[in-house]
């Protein structure tokens, strides 16, 4: 770890250990390529549209109205609910996700490959389907405790995945060195492994927090009011009224706090390695007497996260034989969901690439600001993004109103962070020196990108696209507002069913959502299963 410390003090903006660049090279990198900068700033501005809208709206309604709408007990209650749920879920997800990742990657837990798959599968079960499963069995999950349980079960894979990936990429030589220097297993974990996992863990926890700030369906079903469900209630009573936008403003501030907090905790260390080396598989730590209880805990986790919701779903599918299976509607909703989520995955990943590039390859205040700007969409509920786009489209681009392109744009704004996290961490693990070598050997910048960098980050791009696809399949509120009239997705049909408490009628749509989410989830776990 002395290496990292030295890096931090001598070349804080580059890192990369022994590859510290000459001052001349550093100067070149600090000059931002205008095209890259332009595109990245464009993406950031796009992502900030809803924020501008909320801010402009706040200014336009005037101070007195703002105070009257914000300074009331209801807002205090919502703030308390939102904060305690978000913080508790982030901590729980970080603990569960990291512990599970370490067990699967670094211990002699039996059946590690199977566990790896089972631990990620909850990603394919949308949070509101998970809620639906639980709430259709027992109303006892309504309220804080149940909400915390269910959102944690739904979101811990967001920590598990990046932490597991980081553990796989971590050369065991570091740990062996620490061991050789006299550190015990626990001390090695805390002082050597954990700091290396920090970006992945914090990045994952940040995603969990942002998800929660924007979560609507699951919490509405569990009758746990947060800012986002309150905005929806306001929307139902006043469409784009002042109260909804004021509450959205508070939500933006919460998001800002999270982003700043994560930035501060992440620190400035860089984690690229020079050369891939030839890491051997790590020697699995022996669990010994802890083996049985650990196995039980893992089984309990999988039962709660998978067996309960899928079991409930299966029950309603069978019981709902009275509720017919409307084949035509199911098919059309499935195709629409596939198409919309696929388009969103493509567009979003393409938009994320230049921003990630800027922030990884040209680190500095500009890159950080641009990158962070893209995160706001994710903390804003779909409904706020949609309302902003509806108003802007009606006023300035009427032909785009209620069209697919506008809906895909909304998805892109909402889900950019998911693509960003994957693309950024993939890029961060590619040492820039490879580009320099390629260019020194006479390869042009475009060819270097195409032949050297893209192949190295292809998996990151795929993972980002998969995450966006998963989110797109389950998106509800923006779809309700922005989709062309007559367009129905699996999510909107499922929601219509559960709103009228026809659990059986909603079940086929939920099952199809899980089904078409499965391939993307498979993609996310494949890397893990083919790793040594």
């Amino acid at each position: 770890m002395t290496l990292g410390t030295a890096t931090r003090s001598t070349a804080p903006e580059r890192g990369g250990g022994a590859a510290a660049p000459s001052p001349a090279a550093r100067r070149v990198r600090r000059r931002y390529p205008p095209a890259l900068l332009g595109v990245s700033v464009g993406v950031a501005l796009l992502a900030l549209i809803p924020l501008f809208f909320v801010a402009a709206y706040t200014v336009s309604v005037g101070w007195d109205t703002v105070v009257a709408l914000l300074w009331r007990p209801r807002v205090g209650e919502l703030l308390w609910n939102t904060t305690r749920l978000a913080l508790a879920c982030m901590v729980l997800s970080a603990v569960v996700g990291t512990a599970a990742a370490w067990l699967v990657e670094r211990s002699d837990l039996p059946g590690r490959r199977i566990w790896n798959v089972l631990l990620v599968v909850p990603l394919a079960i949308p949070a509101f389907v998970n809620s639906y499963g639980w709430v259709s069995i027992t109303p006892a999950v309504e309220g804080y405790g149940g909400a915390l349980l269910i959102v944690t079960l739904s979101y811990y894979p967001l920590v598990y995945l990046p932490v597991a990936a980081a553990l796989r990429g971590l050369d065991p030589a570091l740990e062996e060195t620490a061991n050789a220097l006299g550190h015990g297993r626990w001390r090695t974990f805390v002082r050597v492994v954990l700091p290396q996992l920090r970006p992945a863990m914090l990045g994952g926890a940040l995603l969990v927090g942002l998800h929660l700030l924007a979560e609507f369906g699951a919490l509405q079903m569990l009758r746990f009011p947060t800012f986002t469900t309150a905005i929806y209630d306001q929307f139902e009573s006043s469409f784009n009224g002042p109260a909804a936008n004021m509450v959205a403003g508070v939500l933006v501030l919460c998001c800002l706090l999270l982003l700043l907090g994560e930035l501060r905790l992440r620190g400035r260390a860089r984690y690229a390695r020079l050369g891939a080396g030839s890491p051997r598989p790590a020697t699995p730590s022996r669990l010994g007497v802890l083996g049985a209880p650990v196995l039980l805990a893992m089984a309990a986790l999988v039962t709660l996260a998978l067996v309960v919701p899928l079991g409930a779903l299966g029950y309603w599918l069978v019981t709902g034989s009275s509720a017919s299976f409307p084949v035509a509607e199911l098919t059309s909703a499935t195709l629409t969901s596939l198409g919309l989520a696929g388009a969103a995955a493509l567009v979003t990943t393409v938009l994320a690439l230049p921003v990630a590039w800027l922030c990884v390859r040209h680190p500095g205040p500009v890159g950080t600001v641009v990158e962070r700007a893209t995160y706001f969409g994710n903390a804003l509920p779909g409904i706020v993004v949609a309302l902003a786009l509806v108003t802007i489209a009606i006023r300035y681009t009427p032909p785009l109103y209620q069209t697919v392109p506008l809906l895909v744009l909304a998805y892109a704004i909402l889900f950019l962070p998911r693509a960003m996290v994957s693309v950024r961490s993939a890029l961060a693990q590619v040492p820039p020196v490879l580009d320099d070598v390629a260019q020194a050997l006479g390869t042009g910048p475009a060819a270097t990108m195409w032949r050297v960098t893209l192949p190295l980050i292809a998996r990151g791009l795929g993972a980002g696209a998969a995450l966006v696809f998963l989110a797109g399949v389950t998106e509800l509120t923006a779809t309700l507002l922005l989709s062309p009239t007559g367009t129905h997705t699996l999510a909107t049909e499922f929601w219509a069913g559960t709103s009228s408490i026809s659990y059986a009628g909603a079940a086929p749509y939920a099952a199809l959502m899980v089904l078409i989410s499965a391939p993307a989830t498979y993609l996310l776990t494949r890397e893990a299963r083919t790793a040594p």
Partner: protein
Amino acid sequence: MRVRGRAMAVAAGLTVILTAAACGGSNGGTSADGTPTLTLYNAQHDFVKDIAAAFTKKTGIGVRIRSGADSELANQIVQEGKASPADVFVTENSPAMTLVDGKNLFSKVATGTLANVPDAYEPSDADWVGFAARSTVLAYDPKALKPGDLPASILDLAQPRWKGRIGIAPAGADFQAIVSAVLATRGEAATATWLAGLEANAKKYPGNGAVMKAVNAGEIEAGVIYHYYWYSDRAESGANSRNTELHYFSGGDPGAFLSISGAGVLRSSRHQDAAQQLVAFLTSPEAQKILAGASKEYPIANGATQQPDLRPLSQLQPPKVDPATLNGPKVVDLMQRAGLL
């Protein structure tokens, strides 16, 4: 890895095509043979889809349906203004119609259509027309409440003795319509006091169905809902209403409020004739029969027959309220101040 990249590109291309196929062609308002396709903003339940299908079968005029909630769609139409894609707007309750009407966005309803419906179910300005009605009721748990315990007026629910024992669905347009009736009959000050009492007393649920379910499960002793939730559930299996009974308020109490579902033609519609035909059809015997068959709401057109299990419309004692005076935004404002929203 390159191969995978190419496969991903192909997959992406396919999805774009699929999207176009699934969602395409939704922007045209007129089909090849000149028959218009109407866009209906529907805040009512699914039976409207059945009525629209019957309308298309009869006239050849297609109907595209956008679903949402009363106030949401009404405010959306107001924001869209002249550019609104909607031709016809159909709601569950009157305040949403009043909101759109207040911005002068409706065309006058054809006189032939107005003649289909008794005057009591039309706003005084005749800019829209009622086509269905629902009665406010108190669903209660007969094990917890004896007939003597039931409140005489819906306003009594604000009394401290009801604390923690009742449920409402404040975010929904249904309950807000009931509040608008209290506002219209009792005035602003009394309504504000009543809402403050409810905020202290009532458990809040996301919808009428959830309120009824909670009464049925014994979570609360009584809840304010519309009658048809109870009758629909009883007709299906009774799973969510088996342990409950209905209490009808009487004597013109605001708790006996009969909420009118309205239909109107948007002034901005480019298909005025077709849109008027659809609204006329909603009040026709054919559509009213579909309504009475598929829903437990009251059909209200002249000569329509309600389902025999419902309490006869003529026996209800609703307060006399001009639907055109029901004020949605004011109600939302009062409810926000009371902390219910």
